[in-house]
């Protein structure tokens, strides 16, 4: 259920037939992925949960409009990405203003044991590096390297040309390579 992307055709059929349990199954199957995208994009867990919830509410309201010519997962990522970018664009908030607090919190799960200190440092650096990427590049690298979408799926979700996806992804990775230099072997 929580794998990267599975065969959702059966779930889609049940959703269209109005199976009351289908939507619940959909949320269970995609909750972590949608939340993950929101968290990487927004930086705050509370804000990410709020946005992820909004994604599913919209999906629930628009399930009848889902045509099925795209994968269900792509459709969900489309809605999640757009909502994230809209929120980032419309609000005055910026990841940088969240500052150290958010970034520390993101890595705090592994912060306490001494043995994980190094890993914690790497994770903190990783999240910081991702968070500092420009939004249009960040969403591409999140969808590609953290969520495992193909170029085509990213292009569909973000309504971009394949070449644009490719170049933004490359720029994002180049930025990250420089910022993570000291962690590379």
């Amino acid at each position, binding site marked *: 259920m929580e794998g990267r992307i599975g065969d959702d055709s059966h779930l889609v059929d049940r959703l269209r037939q109005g199976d009351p349990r289908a939507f619940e199954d959909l949320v269970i199957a995609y909750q972590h992925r949608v939340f993950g995208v929101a968290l990487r994009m927004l930086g705050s867990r509370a804000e990410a949960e709020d946005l992820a919830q909004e994604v599913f509410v919209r999906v629930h309201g628009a399930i009848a409009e889902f045509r099925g010519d795209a994968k269900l997962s792509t459709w969900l990522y489309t809605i999640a990405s757009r909502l994230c970018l809209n929120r980032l664009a419309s609000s005055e908030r910026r990841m940088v203003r969240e500052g150290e607090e958010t970034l520390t919190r993101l890595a705090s799960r592994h912060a306490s044991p001494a043995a994980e200190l190094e890993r914690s440092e790497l994770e903190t650096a990783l999240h910081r590096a*991702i968070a500092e990427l420009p939004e249009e590049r960040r969403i591409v690298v999140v969808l590609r390297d*953290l969520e495992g979408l193909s170029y085509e799926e990213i292009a569909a979700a973000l309504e971009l040309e394949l070449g644009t996806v490719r170049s933004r992804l*490359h720029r994002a990775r180049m930025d990250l390579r420089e910022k993570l230099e000291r962690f590379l072997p």
Partner: protein
Amino acid sequence: MTCHEARELFSALIDDALGGEERAVLDAHLATCADCGRELQRFRDTVALLRAVEPARAPAGFVDRVLEAARPAPWPRRLLRALFLPWPVKLPVEAAAVVLVAVGVVYLYQATPELQQAARLESPAPTVAEAPRAATPQPSETSIEKKDAPAPSRARAENVQRSTASSDTSGDTEQRRDRQNFQRDAEPAPSAGMVAGGKTEAPPARSGRVLDTRESQAPAAPESAADALKARKQASTPPAVASFASPDVSGGLAVNDRDAALRALAELVARLGGVEDRRVSWPEGSIVELTIPREAYAEFARQLARLGRWQPTREPAELPARVRIGLRITG
């Protein structure tokens, strides 16, 4: 291909998204450029770091919160859901409870009038006392019913009417019962037969038969004179069962010596200018129905409390001029 051009293709190379020609040119460059080879390795390591990031997990309870937000059912539906879901479990239990309550209500409803009827069967006098009282409320209707009573169709109509009356718990139930009493008194043959036959049955059994009779007789038309008589006889059964007119005051009196209490009660009623209408006794207790003047009621209640533990179950503030009292004496 320059180093810059080669490095621009690293992402696509890692993702295996290069065309055949691009791939061949890049491979040729990498074969001759050690710097780009090292850079490619660092690029690969960076992407590997990214892909090793632990996936985020939605917080606990997220699914429930989403479901609540996505399907904000109106409160009546949520209430119904809470009451009836899961329906395979709750519905049978609730249906059984409803049936149980219904049976209990019918039994209780029938039980007390049944005892009153038993008292009436044993005492011939109350019929005389009751008739004028019962006839008063609806003289016009009772005269019509008396006139049409022998016809089979009339019997059916009465049957339906009595079913309605006996299931009615509103304020006019008493009037309907009085009317039924009068009807029964106006049809002596079936009633007398029942009295002569001494047909006193246990309350549940009788109430069951009455219900059966109503169900089977109400829709069916009698086909012969004998059927008509039979139907009328059966039709007369419900009022016989429900002949008890609710007393104005009722309650229980727990005494130590029931015989002594009954004697004292009779003396008290006589002293206060009242009359004992009915009395029936069985091993567990006695039912006494009596009527006393309103002005004597306060004294009656005081004296009753001396006879034993008097617990009224019905004692309205407004009493009629002649107060009918039903006592259940145990001890």
